[in-house]
């Protein structure tokens, strides 16, 4: 089987690694601490691909039938 990049797949929403400043801004926006975010494993194929490390925050942009785009954040855990 040939290897393929997960993020090129149609069903995989766009994953973006946030910079520390962006991460801080996200946490400030929602007034929460990082552990209160939903989680994603470092071993997750999508997280691996963007080389996320434990403690990083990943921004996921999904297509939504009602809101066009919905933005989701996930904290990388091991």
């Amino acid at each position, binding site marked *: 089987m040939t290897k393929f990049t997960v993020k090129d797949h149609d069903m995989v929403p766009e994953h973006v690694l946030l910079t520390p400043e962006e991460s801080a801004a996200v946490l400030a926006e929602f007034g929460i601490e990082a552990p209160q975010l939903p989680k994603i494993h470092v071993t997750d194929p999508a997280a691996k691909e963007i080389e996320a490390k434990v403690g990083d925050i990943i921004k996921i942009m999904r297509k939504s039938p009602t*809101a066009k785009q919905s933005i989701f954040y996930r904290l990388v855990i091991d």
Partner: protein
Amino acid sequence: MTVPKRIGKIRFGLISPQEFRKMSVVKIITADTYDDDGFPIEMGLMDPRLGVIDPGLRCRSCGGRPGECPGHFGHIDLIAPVIHVGFAKLIRKVLRAICRDCSRLMMKDNEKKMYLEQIQTLEKLGQMTDDTVNKVFAEARKNKTCPYCGAPQQEIKFERPLSYIEEGHKLTASDIRDRFEKVPDEDIQVMGMNPGTARPEWMILTVLPVPPVTMRPSITLESGQRSEDDLTHKLVDIIRINQRFQENREAGAPQLIIEDLWELLQYHVTTFLDNTVSGVPPARHRSGRPLKTLSQRLKGKEGRFRGSLSGKRVNFSARTVISPDPNLSIGEVGVPMDIAMELSVPMIANVRNKEIVKTFVRRGPDRHPGVNYVTRPDQRRVKVTDKNCEEVAEQIDIGWKIDRQLADGDIVLFNRQPSLHRMSIMSHRVKVMPYKTFRLNPAVCPPYNADFDGDEMNMHVPQTEEARAEAEILMRVQENILSPRFGGPIIGGIHDYVTGSFLLTHRRKPIDRRSAMELLKKFDIPELPEPEGIVDGEPYWTGKQIFSLILPKGLNLAFKADFCYNCDVCKNEDCENDAYVVIEDGKLLMGTIDAEAVGAFKGKITDRIIKEYERSVASEFLDRMTRLALRGIMHAGFSFGIDDEDIPKAAADQIEETTRTAREKTQQLIEAYNAGELEPLPGRTLDETLEMRIMQTLGKARDTAGKIAGRHLGLDNSGVVMAVSGARGSMLNLTQMAACVGQQSVRGERIKRGYAGRTLPHFRCGDLGAEAHGFVESSYKDGLNPTEFFFHAIGGREGLVDTAIRTSQSGYLQRRLVNALQDLEVKYDGTVKETRGMIVQFKYGEDGVDASRRDYASADNVKRIIKNVLKKESV
């Protein structure tokens, strides 16, 4: 408020005999409870150190008063060990897995290591270890000799409930305990147990904890006699046998007697723990009633979990049968006088209402809006009676509280189980009425899913201002017309309301002055509109004009009615079926009002009114609509009888013809199949193709029959009116009654089961024809022949089973879903969080939209808004 505490860890394990003794405050040695003076006997079952239940005394262990002291455990030293019934199965497993000589788990060291690692990984991942542990037991049992000491193993037979038999000898509890004591810690871990918290020998009891008196209080009967709790009775038995056992053993009684007593002790301890063990006769009370022992207290519907912790009982509530009353507002509930006089609302006398309060008290408890109790400022409650009411009324002063009987206008919560969504509990205004049933407007049946075939509903009376405010602001029927499930009105016309609106507004039937006045006599409408026309010098009006009178001014709306025929090209305003509804400035210009306009779950008009006006306008509209619709149906007259299913002879012949050709066509298909001329459909076998073609042919036959019947049943037929307006039933139901019932099916296929090669002995083996596989040619009106009837029963049974299974399965599914989601909350910033503040969604439902407040984002809506705005500008 107490600070919420977070539970760090819960550990389950077995309690060791040492621990039992450590937590015990007293060793119980005598079976007696109280002495002749009524004082508890020391070291007896009611020892004062076990806690207090008598008011005024203090606990000898902790010094607490009754209610403060939680009670303390005691213990009984059992003379011989006994098996704990709850672990009988596990004891069997362990017994078979360990060596009878050296007590090692019979498995090679490397295997043990492998399984141990597996268990530890699973535990780390927080997953179930059951499968692995069961594999360990199964593997260990296979050995015929011990791999460590080489001792040959014997088969251990387990006989319900509590005997383990090896080589024809019964193993005693002490034998088992001896074996278990020798099991090394490493082996226990491989068996999935933690040697620190659960050693196998602890499954055999040597010390029995005695529950504190607080959980087995004795009751003093009116005669002054004490009646002990079932648990106490059981403990008395245990102690008695224990003592006898000891005496006999010390006296050196024969082995037989010792064994008997041991068995008896085992029996009493077993029933103390669980009185429903199969194979053990339940311990009974003197009266013959089985005792309620430990596990009976916890198990089942009335047990501690389902009955006491998840379930609660309430005061200020009532339950009775419901019945309809279309003259009530949708926000009202008719309450029987008997209930109104029992339930009450608290009122506190103050400067302003003191005199009013006094008049209530003066009425006493027997004249309706009266008072049942008054509470003085010192919290003493006084029952108001016919005799003392005058006297009590005079004493009333500021600060006194009265329990005023429920009266018209009070707000109450009304509920029907199962409470599946929030509209299952809504608040209504009370209307006190005669007779014994709750009355409600049939338009509020859909949210409760209620009907009047004997349904009962519950009513609760809020007792504080806060509760009343919440009920009024959040839970009123008006606030719940729109369902958050689909954003449309869940409250609306059903059955006759829809039929009535349809009959009133269909076409332009002339209505004379007298009838028009009668239709409107329930409304405060001072004047009739301009008449539609004049016939024979008499003015006449139409149903559309009358209906317009209950529509709010300024309402604009256009939509297709429910009975729209879905023509290929919609002629919109020029629809010749009167199925295109146009409302302009609150006037019904054309179209017919049916389920699509005012029905529950659909209700375009209700929906529009709610979104453009206030909720009170919508509820007012529903009230008027229900009343007008009933006047409308009475004005026209409406009934459905057996002869409404009659069709003319010509049509019946035509239907006969249709079914005959269908039967012939089926026969042709079968012949083609037998001759091998049938072409299989792509991806199907020949057999499947034949089945599909036959099903198709017969299905078409029924549809054609239905169409023929439909041609002869017009809007003068009440059945058609109901089906077409969306009030009840469908054209298919009418077809089945008047023309042809059609193919009966099981799992979407023709009926095939029964005898070998045939469904019934009436047919030849291998007959593939229509009537041999459940095609019902007759109509319900004509009646079914015996074979048809049988096939119909088969199909009908499948339907019943399906609904029964569907409701139970979807109910459980919903329960699990609701349990998982019940603590989620939409916060003010639009995020969805659970109780610890963990984010579940960053924006509620991705778009942050409340389904019941959105207005469908369609181009149609934009047009309407522009029209509305421009018109207002131009005026």
